[in-house]
């Protein structure tokens, strides 16, 4: 490969990596809980991945698999470090909330309040469908079998309900960003 092609490949990988940042933040926050540890872990993953790209280290699998592998190591390191802390020093946020979903604590009061209002305006059947999908974690096929409806119809209902929520939440949610990005949130 010529030096120009190598440079082009490096730039392409960097762009792909930057595009992965929002998802990476979700992954580490889900694994570690939101907070400083998650932010530091995401930074560490990006720093290591960028270093590998810049040094032209071979990335045998896809970049996503490569980044996910780094994330798994960094998350394991953070968990191991936490395990060595006395319980009293462990962030209270890291102790699981019995009834919480793994991503629930990423949502602040303002976002939850907005979603409360939007859900209240949804058809009760659609609201129940979303509960079964995102709280109970049932598959669409299982829900359809339970309701005696074709899965394709249930899937369409789910998709329409999500679109309706986006519309109810306003222009900021149109691109799917129901959760305000903390980097751009007005304080």
């Amino acid at each position, binding site marked *: 490969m010529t030096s120009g092609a190598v440079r082009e490949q490096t730039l392409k990988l960097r762009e792909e990596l930057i595009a992965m940042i929002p998802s990476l933040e979700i992954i580490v926050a889900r694994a570690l809980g939101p907070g400083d540890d998650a932010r*530091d872990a995401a930074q560490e993953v990006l720093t290591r991945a*960028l270093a590998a790209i810049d040094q032209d280290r071979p990335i045998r699998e896809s970049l996503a698999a490569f980044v996910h592998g780094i994330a798994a190591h960094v998350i394991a390191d953070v968990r191991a470090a936490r395990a060595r802390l006395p319980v009293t020093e462990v962030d209270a946020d890291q102790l699981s909330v019995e009834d919480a979903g793994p991503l*629930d604590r990423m949502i602040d009061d303002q976002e939850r309040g907005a979603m409360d209002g939007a859900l209240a305006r949804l058809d009760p059947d659609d609201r129940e469908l979303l509960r079964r999908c995102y709280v109970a*974690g049932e598959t669409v096929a299982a829900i359809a079998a339970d309701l005696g409806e074709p899965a394709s119809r249930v899937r369409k209902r789910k998709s329409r309900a999500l679109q309706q929520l986006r519309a109810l939440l306003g222009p900021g949610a149109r691109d799917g*960003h129901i959760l305000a990005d903390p980097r751009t949130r007005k304080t």
Partner: protein
Amino acid sequence: MNDAADHEESDAAQGYVAGTLGPEETAAFERHLLTCAACRDEVRQGAAISASMRGVAERAPAAGGERRGRRPTVWKAPVFAGLGLAAAVVLLVTSRDDDAARLARLYTPPPFEAMPVRAPLTELDVLVDGAMAAYATGDYGRARERFARIPAGELTTGARFYFGAAALADGRASAAREPLARVVADSLSPFAAPARVLLAKALLHGGLADSALATVAVSRDAAARAFADSIRTLLRPSRR
């Protein structure tokens, strides 16, 4: 989940939100999530739905949330709060003890306060943020390492200042000299005056007391001039 049809039929996003996927399914979905904006949006939306329906929200720090306080996610530029305090500490230390080693030591690294910005996160931001995140937590060794990975030409004057401060605080005075010298050369920068004191300390570490004196003696900054006086005291024949 590699093609559109698989994607359409998959319930992985909702299982990921609800926490019902097994470890292998979770890993596979996360690899996909890294490159799929549609799934990312569904996960975000599903998380908000889940939090709303379960009545869970992120706790405010005042309610006993984070042990170490909340930081904004992004830092753009260092700020100067507390630099005066750092200078005061320098004065206090130098008036008590003119021993070269003590004079060269960085007792209180310049504090850094994060400042939230509303700007797209660039590649450089990511690298600088990583370094400043380590600096803000007092992990100067890691901060220095992270700054060192950034091409020198891409660092702002403020970032160079903290790079030098991190290196000095980490006991790597020789690594501190180059970035601090560049900050001093940027004479219009508000970082230039405090950088002179740090650079002088870095030079003292290397036994270069005359160069250290020359660095701070020309400054109009009170802290730098006081530091110059301390070096002069050190250099007096009777004290050597």
